[in-house]
């Protein structure tokens, strides 16, 4: 089996386990929860078929749902976050790389582009997830706080991982 494929499967499993066993139990100041699973969606190659990417995201989200007892919540958030993936990459990438397939990273997209791309995907994921989870606008300030807090926290982790992986 291709080494890259094994590496990616291992990464998916690791992220999945970390998300279920650790990240979901963190809530900084009651608002900020890190969603490590977003890293998997950010690293979907630009040349991958969007339908396959959405299927992947749906089943990853569904697996997390099964373990967290929120069937449908993560699945919907994951699919919605991946749906504009290709569009966002095309908006932030350099023009000369338009025809090539690549895995989005700060090195390729630049820190500004990558941060924007990661922020948007993370924000979409968090908005959908928290809106579905609360399913009402009873306490809009709390909802907004959780969305902003979790997006910022997740983005920070994503950028940290990007820095660490770049150094390696």
């Amino acid at each position: 089996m291709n080494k890259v494929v094994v590496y990616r499967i291992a990464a998916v499993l690791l992220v999945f386990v970390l998300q279920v066993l650790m990240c979901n139990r963190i809530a900084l100041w009651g608002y900020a929860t890190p969603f490590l699973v977003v890293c998997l969606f950010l690293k979907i190659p630009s040349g991958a078929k969007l339908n396959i990417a959405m299927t992947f995201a749906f089943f990853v989200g569904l697996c997390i749902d099964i373990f967290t007892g929120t069937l449908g919540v993560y699945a919907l958030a994951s699919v919605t976050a991946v749906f504009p993936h290709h569009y966002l990459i095309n908006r932030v990438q350099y023009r000369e790389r338009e025809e090539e397939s690549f895995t989005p990273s700060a090195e390729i997209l630049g820190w500004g582009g990558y941060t924007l791309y990661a922020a948007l995907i993370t924000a979409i994921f968090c908005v959908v997830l928290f809106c579905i989870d609360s399913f009402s606008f009873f306490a809009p300030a709390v909802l907004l706080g959780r969305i902003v807090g979790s997006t910022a926290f997740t983005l920070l982790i994503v950028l940290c991982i990007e820095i660490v992986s770049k150094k390696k």
Partner: protein
Amino acid sequence: MRKLTRFFLTHSSVLVYLCYVTLGLVLLFRFNAYQQSVGFTSASRIAGSVYSLSGAVTGYFGLQRTNNELLAQNGKLQDELAVLRDAVARAQAVDTLRAAATGSPENSVIAKVINNSVSRRNNYITLDKGEADGIVPEMGLADQNGVVGVVAAVSPQYAVALSLLNPNLRISCKIKRTGHIGSLSWRGEDVRYAGLDDLAAYIEVNAGDTVVTSGYSAAFPEGLIVGFIEDAQKVRKDHFYSLTVRLAADFSKLNFVRVIDNRKPQELVEIEKEVSGNE
């Protein structure tokens, strides 16, 4: 078909996304009690609003039919009300007339006046009771105030009476205070007044004296109020005198009357006939 296929292929990612969203929502509402509850409540509210709007629209178009139904129902209720009012009025009149007849020995039937004229020269009263109710000609009529007429003809269901406002009807009366006899008849002028004729010259009367039936006729028992002397001034008429009497009954307001059965015994009638025949 080809265009449709091309459309689906071009927008396949949108379709796949919608499929996953649908699947996700199904899972969400199927397995999450909170979302299911909120969704059901919201759906009920939306459905309620839609049904309310739909009901308002269809209700507007159904107003014509509803209006017709209400009109028909209203008419029916008006009819029932009229019947009930008539029944109540009849019951009240019966009570009043029976109270007025307390102490009288005669039998009586309560009848409703269904036609009554006061403006003609010869006035008549039509009653809603007839032969089937025991009414026969020559029975007297009185309301709660006083004498109003005498039955002239009967059919099985109806009776027609000569009103006191008919010059052809003469009633034997007497002045209650003095006991003097006279004959009362309408003069064809004012509906409030009649004339008491055939009075002897020597009698003295006062204005306001009560005139009552004498009891000599078959129509009325003795003592039924007919009216009151209006003017104590007697008017000479042939060898007798005449007085103006204000009638007790208000003929313009006749509603229910008491038909009085004061018929003489057959034996008495036969003797009177025999005496009349010998003359």
